[in-house]
């Protein structure tokens, strides 16, 4: 059965807003039980794509099947089987955490919804009688995730679940998402945080300007697009830069008076260290690491993944 293999099938999906082409003829599939991340900067078309799949928006053209059904024709059959955390989620200010979950469980006609279990899952046990308005940004998002799970959905859509949260709140949301992953829930996640995609996703699709430009597991994407090592050296002597350059590498200075060198082979690391030692220079710090998705994205698109202008919603 096709549904067992792919819970989401997207074929030649296009979405236009007047003259703006938000999503440009994209195709991909999402397998059951996997965490699929759509990774891209703001304005890349992530939210438009997810909102078409989870039935909020209609596509301009293309076919999208969710759980084997056409999203444009079978909304009423699809909706009870999915859970959605929309971008910029918000709820009724003066309704408590428990009442909010009860409200949504009634909308799904779930008489026996495990409200306490959901509260435990998102770690809101000591906030059950707190009004939504009084929750911090991170707690509000965790409640949003619990709401998305209230109908025990087969697929969960989380549209930028950690955008605007401070690092601590973000990690708390990640803990919840990791427990979902552990349970084998199929999750469709959009994010512009590379660490989030790398930490949570089985499959990552990188989207830029409405086009999917690469797709695979985080390891595959890095292997395929950034098969090198990054060395960061901090030295007391500035002559080290010249020594590395004369060896045929292309060192660059970074902001912290360190040298960054990209090398293709593991042996090159040893060669550089030996050359520095032979020149009688002392090494203060050394960092050798594989590239991450940020660098993959940079290489593929030539633009930065992060928008540093994004405000952060801290704990209240």
């Amino acid at each position, binding site marked *: 059965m096709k549904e067992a293999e792919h819970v989401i099938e997207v074929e030649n999906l296009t979405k236009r807003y007047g003259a703006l082409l938000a999503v440009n003829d994209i195709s991909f599939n999402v397998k059951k039980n996997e965490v699929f991340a759509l990774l891209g900067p703001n304005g890349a078309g992530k939210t438009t794509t997810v909102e078409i799949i*989870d*039935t*909020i928006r209609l596509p*301009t053209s293309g076919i999208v099947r969710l759980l084997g059904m056409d999203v444009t024709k079978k909304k009423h059959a699809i909706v009870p089987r999915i859970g959605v955390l*929309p971008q910029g989620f918000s709820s009724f200010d003066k309704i408590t955490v428990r*009442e909010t979950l009860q*409200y949504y469980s009634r*909308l799904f006609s779930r008489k026996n919804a495990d409200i306490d279990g959901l509260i435990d899952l998102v770690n809101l046990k000591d906030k059950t009688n707190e*009004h939504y308005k009084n929750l911090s940004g991170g707690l509000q998002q965790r409640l949003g995730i619990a*709401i998305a799970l209230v109908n025990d959905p087969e697929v969960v859509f989380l549209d930028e679940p950690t955008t605007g949260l401070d690092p601590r709140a973000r990690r708390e949301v990640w803990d919840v998402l990791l427990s979902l992953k552990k349970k084998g829930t199929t999750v469709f996640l959009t994010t512009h945080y590379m660490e989030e995609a790398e930490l949570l996703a089985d499959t990552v699709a990188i989207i830029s300007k409405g086009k999917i430009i690469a797709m695979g597991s985080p390891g595959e994407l890095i292997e395929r697009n950034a098969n090198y090592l990054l060395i960061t050296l901090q030295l007391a002597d500035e002559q080290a830069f010249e020594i590395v350059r004369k060896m045929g590498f292309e060192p660059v200075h970074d902001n912290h008076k360190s040298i960054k060198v990209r090398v293709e082979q593991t042996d090159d690391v040893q060669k550089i260290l030996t050359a520095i030692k032979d020149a009688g220079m002392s090494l203060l710090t050394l960092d050798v690491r594989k590239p991450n998705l940020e660098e993959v994205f940079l290489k593929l698109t030539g633009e930065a993944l992060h928008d540093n202008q994004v405000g952060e919603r801290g704990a209240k």
Partner: protein
Amino acid sequence: MNLRIVGANLFVTLMSIYREKTTMFFTLAFPIILILLFGTIFMSQDNVNFHLSVQDLDQSESSAKSIETLGHNGKFKITKVDPAINALQYVKDNKANLVLVIPKGFETALMRRMMHKDLTASVTVTYFYDPSSSSVPTKMEILNGVLAGLNQEMTGIPPFIKSVQKSILTKKYRFIEFFIPGIIAMAVMTLSLFGTVYLNTELRQKGIIRKLCTTPITRTDWILSHMLYQFIIALVSTTVMLVVSYAVFHVNLHLNAWLPAFILLDVFAFVGIGMILTRFVKESQSAAAAANAISFPIMFLSGSFFPIELMPGFLQTIAKTLPLYYVNEGLRASMIFQDNMAALRDSAVIGVFAAIVFILGIIATKWEEGK
């Protein structure tokens, strides 16, 4: 339609307003303030006392008697102005907006006319007035009436045409009793219109509508629960208004099944208008401005505060095209006059209007984003 979903949604909206104490207070307080304010102003409208300044230059027994007669009319509270003062300056100094000046020679002329039947004998009283004052025309009208009566009496001939006033009502109604149904209609209109516009734009701006779009709640469930919510709020508000009216002004209004019927139709009509408005105005602030722009002219033109007969003819024609006019008329027909036929006619008009705008409102309410 799923009644469990309608109930769940109704609970959330009711709890939201119940816990928002300030909103709850002002929702109920606004019409109460209007009732108390206007009720107090017009409570003794039948015994309105205008201040009338009179300067008696004649200082005679006859002139004093005439001034006394003016006071007996019951409409005036007389203030005597010193004959030595310049009456024109007195008005200019804003000490009074109208001064009636009885000239010197008043008694002499009166004697000539009464005793010697000298028809050439007459006196001219002068009004010094400030035309910018709104009460002056009414005062002059009453004064002219009193003077005409005096003139007629002095002829000694009984009047040819007499008039008798016979009200169709067994009991005369007071202004406050005219006013309360109008305020109920107006309050229900503003609650429904602003409530719909505010709730829809607020929930849309906050993204709650987008979230609801991914749940099994349908537009029909949502609209029905919103309707019930507005109806409950309108009933609570009306009950509070009536309690205050009975307690403070001892009104005598008839409460019957027409009252909830007209409230329901009022809610339907203005929730419908609110839903149409929300389709075109996206931000909650501009939506409130648009709701104001619609509700204020309707409020004043529909006869909520005063009878439309006081307005120019063309405005009366406009008033009769407004939905609130029929709610006002219908409520007054049932609550004051107990006229079931008139209430039925008015309910039919507002019913048809409400059905049309409500259907248009449902069509206008859109959750999913288009292609």
